[in-house]
C-alpha cells in the first residue's frame, strides 16, 4: 500500500503551545482517561453484583493510597471533560469565540473543575 504522508492535524511535534490548545488537548486526554474510568465504574457495579467478598476486596483497593489517587484523578477528569464539553457545545452553537471570552471560560473551567474535585474529596 502506498504510504500516506499527509501531515495530520494537530501536528504535535511542531505545534506552538497556547493556553487554548492546551485546554483542547486536555479535553481529549481527559476523554481517554474517562474511557478507562468507565471500566472502573463497571467493575464496581460487577463487584456489587458478585457479592460482599468481591465488593469488599474492591473497596479495600479504592481506599488505599493508589485507589484514592485514582478516584480523585478520575473525578477531576470527568468534571473537567463535562465543563469543557459545555464550552465546546457553546462554540458549536456559535457562542464564545472571542479570544477574551474563550480565555476566560477556559480559566473558569480549569478552576471550577479543581474546586469541585476539592469540595467532593476534601470537605
Amino acid at each position, binding site marked *: 500500500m502506498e504510504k500516506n504522508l499527509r501531515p495530520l492535524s494537530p501536528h504535535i511535534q511542531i505545534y506552538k503551545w497556547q493556553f487554548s490548545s492546551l485546554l483542547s488537548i486536555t479535553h481529549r486526554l481527559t476523554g481517554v482517561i474517562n*474511557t478507562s474510568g468507565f471500566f472502573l465504574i463497571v467493575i464496581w457495579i460487577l463487584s456489587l453484583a*458478585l457479592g460482599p467478598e468481591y465488593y469488599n476486596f474492591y473497596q479495600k483497593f479504592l481506599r488505599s493510597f493508589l485507589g484514592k489517587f485514582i*478516584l480523585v484523578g478520575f473525578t477531576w477528569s470527568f468534571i473537567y471533560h463535562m465543563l469543557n464539553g459545555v464550552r465546546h*457545545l457553546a462554540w458549536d452553537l456559535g457562542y464564545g469565540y472571542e479570544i477574551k471570552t474563550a480565555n476566560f471560560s477556559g480559566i473558569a473551567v480549569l478552576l471550577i473543575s479543581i474546586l469541585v474535585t476539592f469540595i467532593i474529596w476534601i470537605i
Partner: protein
Amino acid sequence: MKNRALNKWFMQRASAVILIPILLFFLYSLINLVNKDYTGALNFFDNYLSIIFFVLFLIFAGLHLKLGINEIVEDYIQNPNLKSILNKIIMIYSAIFPIIGIISLLKIIL
C-alpha cells in the same frame, strides 16, 4: 441524516448533552457511595431512579466514548490496519462493558 460524518458529529453532541445531568447525578452518588459498605451500596440501588440513571449512563457513556476515541484514532493513527484494529477494540469495549454493567444491575435488583 444521510451523511455519516454529520451523523457521528451530531450523536457525539447529543450524547454529551444527555450525559450532563447523568454526570451530575453521578457526582452526587459518588459523595453518597464512597464510604458505604456492601449493604449500604445495595440500599442505594433500592430505588428505580438510581437504576435508571446508571443504565442511561452505561448506554450513553458507552456511545460517547466510542465516538470520541474513534475521532482520536482518526486524527492520529495513519496506518489503516492499526486504525481498523483500534476501532474494533473500542467497538467491543464500548459494547461489552455497558452489557456487563446492565446485567450486574439486573442481578442487584432481582
